[in-house]
């Protein structure tokens, strides 16, 4: 509770709302003790005095010469009391109905909820007006009307909670122990729904104050001479032009009350919503923020795509997660480079950094360069990056259901990929889309074009994802675990397809995976990542046959072998380190059986005779 309050008051706006509301509440509580004139005593010789004009009438007087300040405070008192009473009544009856419906379920629930739905089919004021029409104007009747109108809201919310509770074990246990329904409801159900009722009340009490004020404003609520804020405003309307202050004073008070309740309500909601605590609700920008501390040193071009000392971090509050801690990679035309590592090793972030697709905030590229054909993409800005995305470097993502747009047809998604880069007619784009579907060997491509993603199987969706990546004949394709979500036979087909495409079109492929089998099948070279850095690199066969880094060796040992007979799979003990708190030296040292003191001291370089390299002081094999 105190943590909740702390969170609530860290929100400055919510705190402001609490202070304003508290001040108003305090003021109306002590109103009878204040030296104020009687709010209902008329004095027509003192009509329409302006604020601060006459002593004894701080806010002036109204059309009957009554003191506005006194009327304001007493009116606020009345409005708050009525609004609060309406909230309590609505909460009481609404919750009772909701609990009965949710607890008994079946027919009872059905009938009650039908009725509630009917009530909710009304615009609220029609119902309120009908009730006032039947009962006659008056504050009490307005209160009843407002409460009645809000009953369905409580009934529906509380029913939802109760339905869940009624199915729980402790309710069953209470039933078995022979308790009556009423006792179960009062002792087992009610305590559990009470917090929800209170929260629902706190979010609706502002509304109810406003609604009763509204009815009074229409002349259907409080009757003269007693006034609440609404009827004050209603009476003042006639003199709006000649004496605007009589309208402004009560109007501003309603505004202040409603706003402070809104602010407080927002604060409560935010404090209760755990997603906001982690700051995860911010949206990613169009391109990852690049904030490099110094100039990037020049380097000779090694491949079509060169990553040079790339560092990508996530800044969450005061914490810095070094997801990618200085990665050098290159891939040549027609070559397939595999990047392998456990989840969280930074391989996906490395790949996404290439085209500035790391979610930002919180992602920041803090150092290094990404060179496409010798040209640094990170210093080029969004405009140029946008033009290269899909045109020069294309992506294939992991889960094709989540990565394809759910509401666009396949043909629209493919055509858009083309038309984002080339001015072609819709007809041409469609033709080309059809070719693309044929190229990725989708049966019945004509009819598939008209499909939505949810109408296709996982394998088909991933083919569409690949077709989309091929749309503009890119030179580099980055495939981020494209087969992880697929079953084995489909996976084999997709891999074969990618391999063919690479050979036919001379594509450079960066293939990210955690599966050595896939790497062996497809990749010319492989880079092993651990805790954001490359720990070993070399031609696939060499690395698989003779791993140099203890981590690589252990990782390969984890792979079950088909037909290899039963053997114990050597899981690596421990967990990868958290990248916001990396140990000095080798990040794998704490889990490594060969680690010595030197491993935990100072920077260890990635060393070896090209094409092989390893980041280890005591490698398994000399490279």
């Amino acid at each position, binding site marked *: 509770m105190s943590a909740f309050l702390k969170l609530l008051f860290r929100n400055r706006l919510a705190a402001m709302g609490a202070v304003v509301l508290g001040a108003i509440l305090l003021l109306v509580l002590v109103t009878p003790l204040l030296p104020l004139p009687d709010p209902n005593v008329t004095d027509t010789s003192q009509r329409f005095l302006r604020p601060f004009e006459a002593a004894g009438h701080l806010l002036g007087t109204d059309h009957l010469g009554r003191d506005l300040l006194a009327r304001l405070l007493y009116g606020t008192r009345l409005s708050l009391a009525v609004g609060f009473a309406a909230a309590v009544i609505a909460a009481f009856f609404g919750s009772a109905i909701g609990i009965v419906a949710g607890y008994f379920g079946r027919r009872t629930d059905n009938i009650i909820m039908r009725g509630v739905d009917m009530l909710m*089919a*009304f*615009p*609220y004021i029609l119902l309120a007006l009908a009730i006032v029409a039947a009962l006659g104007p008056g504050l009490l009747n307005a209160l009843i009307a407002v409460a009645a109108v809000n009953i369905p809201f409580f009934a529906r919310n509380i029913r939802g909670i109760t339905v869940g509770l009624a199915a729980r074990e402790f309710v069953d246990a209470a039933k078995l122990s022979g308790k009556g329904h009423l006792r179960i409801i009062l002792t087992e159900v009610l305590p559990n729904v009470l917090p929800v009722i209170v929260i629902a009340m706190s979010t609706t009490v502002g509304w109810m104050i406003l609604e009763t004020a509204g009815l009074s404003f229409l002349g259907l609520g409080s009757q003269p001479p007693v006034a609440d804020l609404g009827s004050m405003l209603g009476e003042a309307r006639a003199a709006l032009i000649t004496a605007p202050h009589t309208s402004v004073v009560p109007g501003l008070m309603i505004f202040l009350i409603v706003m402070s309740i809104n602010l407080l309500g927002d604060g409560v909601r935010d404090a209760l919503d755990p997603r906001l605590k982690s700051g995860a609700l911010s949206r990613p920008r169009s391109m990852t923020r690049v904030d490099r501390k110094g100039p990037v040193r020049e380097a000779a071009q090694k491949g079509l795509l060169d990553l040079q000392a790339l560092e990508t971090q996530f800044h969450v509050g005061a914490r810095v997660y070094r997801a990618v801690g200085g990665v050098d990679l290159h891939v040549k035309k027609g070559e397939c480079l595999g990047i392998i590592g456990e989840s969280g090793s930074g391989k996906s972030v490395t790949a996404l950094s290439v085209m500035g697709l790391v979610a930002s905030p919180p992602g920041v590229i803090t150092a290094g360069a990404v060179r496409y054909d010798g040209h640094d993409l990170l210093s080029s800005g*969004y405009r140029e990056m*946008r033009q290269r995305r*899909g045109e020069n470097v294309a992506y294939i993502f992991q889960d094709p259901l989540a990565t394809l747009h759910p*509401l666009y047809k396949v043909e629209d998604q493919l055509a858009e990929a083309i038309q984002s880069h080339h001015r072609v007619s819709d007809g041409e784009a469609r033709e080309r889309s059809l070719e693309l579907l044929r190229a990725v060997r989708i049966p019945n491509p004509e009819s598939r074009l008209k499909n939505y993603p949810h109408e296709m199987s996982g394998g088909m969706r991933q083919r569409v*994802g690949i077709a989309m990546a091929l749309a503009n004949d890119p030179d580099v394709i980055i495939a981020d675990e494209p087969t992880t979500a697929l079953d084995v036979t489909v996976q084999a087909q997709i891999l074969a397809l990618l391999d063919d495409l690479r050979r036919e079109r001379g594509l450079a492929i960066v293939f990210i995976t955690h599966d050595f089998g896939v790497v062996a099948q497809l990749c010319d070279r492989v880079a092993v990542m651990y805790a954001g850095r490359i720990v070993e690199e070399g031609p696939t066969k060499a690395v698989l046959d003779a791993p140099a880094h203890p981590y690589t060796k252990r990782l390969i040992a984890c792979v079950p072998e088909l037909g290899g007979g039963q053997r114990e799979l050597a899981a690596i003990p421990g967990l990868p380190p958290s990248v916001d708190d990396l140990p000095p030296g080798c990040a794998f040292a704490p889990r490594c059986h060969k680690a010595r003191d030197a491993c935990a001291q100072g920077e260890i370089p990635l060393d070896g005779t090209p094409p092989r390299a390893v980041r280890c002081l005591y490698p398994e094999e000399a490279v």
Partner: protein
Amino acid sequence: MGSYILKRLVSAIPVLLGITVIVFLIMAMIPGDPATAILGSYATPENVEKINRDLGLDKPLVQRYFIWLGNMLTGDFGRSFSLNRPVLDEVLERFNATLILAGTSFVLCAVLGVLAGVVSAARQYGLADKLITFVVLIGISVPAFFLGMMMILLFAVNLRWLPVSGMYAIYGGGDLADLLRHLVMPALALAAVATGVVARLSRSAMLEVLRQDYIRTARAKGVPERRVIMGHALRVAMVSIIPVLGIQAGFVLSGAVYIEIVFQWPGVGRMLVDAILTRDILLVQGGVVFVAACYVLFNIAVDVAQSLLDPRIKT
């Protein structure tokens, strides 16, 4: 699609019947002798008897309901005693004015609200976002009737830009330009709260959608950012915004009652308030049933729009 619309229309029938039952029951709550209540100080014995006969109050409750329902289905909503004309004629005429006002406000709140929410989300934590959040907070906290009064003070009385009230100028008005001049202030005042609510919801819906994987896919394809926001993201966000628009339509319709009073707009809301104050029960009954029925049909249209937008909804 046609069968879906038909299905929704059929499913509305019990709701519409429920509405008539509820209104009928509320009106049956009138304490004491309804005829006396309706007539007030005009309650001479002849009048009471006439009212009782006219309203069929001498018959049992259930029978009265079905007579009333049957009459309504044939277009007979009874006769307003205070206006001395058929209720339906009056309601239709007034509803026309309300529709112009509330319809304009609804379009305003939908367009401005969604736009503000989208800009706010796209520029999260930026200046535009902070500005919009602030204005929205004010907007949803000002009661519509107070906002209307303040607008009159500023734009009609002080600046003299717009007419104070009414729907047409009394002399020499009556054309479209005149209507629009009269419509600006009430429509804006009425739209304020709903716009704020829609803007808030649109912002959070957009923020939610912008974090999804398919947005990253769109960006990876090289789709221009404007299209990512206004196409890919908004399209999905609309799926959760549209039902709220349906709910807000109800609030706009409700707020119209206050705005019609403040701006002397000759709509159905003002008619209802007058009818309540003159105890013209038949007029209240007819007006409420008619507007509620229109609202139910409007919500069906919202559902249909929703299903058009989202192919995943089974039609």
